[in-house]
């Protein structure tokens, strides 16, 4: 479904975010991408729909080589890739319905979208999705009037209304409370399996990743250091990905949903963030 070959990304500032990442995602497969902040997780998924331009390497979506496309064909490829963002990235001042329908912009002419006259089939699809994510009551509310969990559901509906073949999901739960996080992850995995969608999910929360995602890819300093089933995420593996930490204690806290930052305390000279910026 998705094939990434030897992807490199070096930002203009000189920071190297990705150093030769190769990854294959099968149809219908959801993978969790974990790694410390700054490991290149966001860069990697943004390269797939070229919100970030990779420096070198190739990306194939099905038979399309995304990395070779020029503006118009790139827009067409982007229609096939839905994206869900950490801070939801809804257009705050537009209504829920407008936000969802904005997922159809790639299929709609400029004037039709300017006058918000979307085809009836699109509107039907949008209503069906809003019903599916449980927001049918909020159709005409402005996005900035919703709670975090509701916003993320709008974000999900916007990505799905594209009828994508592939989903890029960037930290879907980082701004949500533990309970809402689980609900959102459950909704996402259900929707993906209903639609046979393949997806890459960037996720900070290792416990949540293990709970919902069968395959985990660990990224550290722009390189893949682990790729395997989530059951095999042993303390040793986590140390390779994140650096030194007492992982056995955190692992026991699985049900608490908050591994990040509230685990065990170690002297500051052993903090992993200091070693892998």
């Amino acid at each position, binding site marked *: 479904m998705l094939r990434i070959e030897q992807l490199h990304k070096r930002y203009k500032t000189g920071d190297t975010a990705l150093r030769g990442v190769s990854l294959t995602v099968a149809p219908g497969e959801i993978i969790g991408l974990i790694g410390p902040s700054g490991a290149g997780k966001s860069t990697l998924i943004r390269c797939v729909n070229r919100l970030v331009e990779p420096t070198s390497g190739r990306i194939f979506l099905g038979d399309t080589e995304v990395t070779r496309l020029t503006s118009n064909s790139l827009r067409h490829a982007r*229609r096939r890739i839905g994206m869900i963002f950490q801070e939801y990235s809804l257009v*705050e001042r537009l209504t829920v319905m407008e936000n969802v329908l904005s997922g159809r912009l790639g299929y709609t002419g*400029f004037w039709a979208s300017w006058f918000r006259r979307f085809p009836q089939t699109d509107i039907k699809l949008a209503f069906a999705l809003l019903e599916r994510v449980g927001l049918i009551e909020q159709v005409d509310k402005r996005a900035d009037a919703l709670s975090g969990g509701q916003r993320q559901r709008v*974000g999900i509906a916007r990505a799905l209304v*594209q009828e994508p073949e592939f989903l890029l999901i960037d930290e879907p739960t980082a701004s949500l409370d533990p309970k809402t996080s689980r609900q959102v992850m459950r909704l996402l995995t259900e929707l993906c399996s209903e639609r046979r969608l393949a997806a890459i999910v960037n996720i900070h929360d290792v416990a949540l990743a293990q709970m919902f995602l069968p395959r985990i890819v660990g990224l550290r300093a722009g390189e893949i250091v682990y790729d395997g089933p989530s059951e095999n995420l042993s303390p040793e593996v986590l140390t390779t990905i994140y650096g030194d930490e007492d992982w056995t204690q955190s692992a026991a806290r699985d049900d608490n949903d908050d591994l990040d930052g509230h685990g065990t305390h170690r002297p500051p000279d052993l903090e992993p963030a200091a070693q892998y910026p």
Partner: protein
Amino acid sequence: MTTATQNISPTNGDARRWAPPRLIETNWVRWAVALGVAGYLILAFASINVNWARVFEGMARAGRLFEGFLTPNFTARWSDIQQGMIESLTMTVTATVAGVALAIPFGLGAARNLTPWWIYGICRGVIAVSRALHELIVAIFFVVMFGFGPFAGFLTLCISTIGFLSKLLADDIEEIDPAQVDAIRATGAGFWQVIDFAVASQVLPRLVGLTTYKVDINFRESSVIGIVGAGGIGATLNTALDRYEFDTAAAILLIIIVIVMACEYTSGAIRKRFA
């Protein structure tokens, strides 16, 4: 608990003092700057020539001006006032509409996050030029070019609207939330659809606010540039003052004040509606 209390008590004898950091650290430099400023002010005030006899003469005239204010005369020159007002209002509305219509494309072009550097350069250049000269000077130019009358005023206000609005719009666009733009781009939307959904929706309230604000600035400007011959109520006001008809001048000023206040309240209401 007791130790903590002791630690923060002032009797504990902690000798550390704190004062906010100074703007200029070196002592003598700081004093030299202060003395220099004071000396300059004294010399500057000393150099102002005041002709006190002339001031007292003016006092008498000011007295008559204020007297006229207390007895504004709307009727004596009503048809002149009316014509001037209509001209000014027409100038204001047409110049604002045309100015905004031109300011939006220049504003989009001058936003670094939307446009390539050469379009950016051109648009910022146009904005800089249209802001460089004061309205009065621009008005004098246009009066020389196109003759007396409201057309010169219209052009002046157009230029000033472009300068004002496109600069502030561009600065505002440069500060929008890029995540919303990325989200719309990621759907496969085209450039103008991104502008419509992700950019316009973020800057619209500010654009509406600035436009209504510019309407009342333009109205006030229209009464000023009339003095140099660019038509409108300013011309009427100038004539009234030239003829020492302070009561008519007072009537004109009162009408201007009322209209500016009305604009102010209306624009406030509109801004609230669009928040």
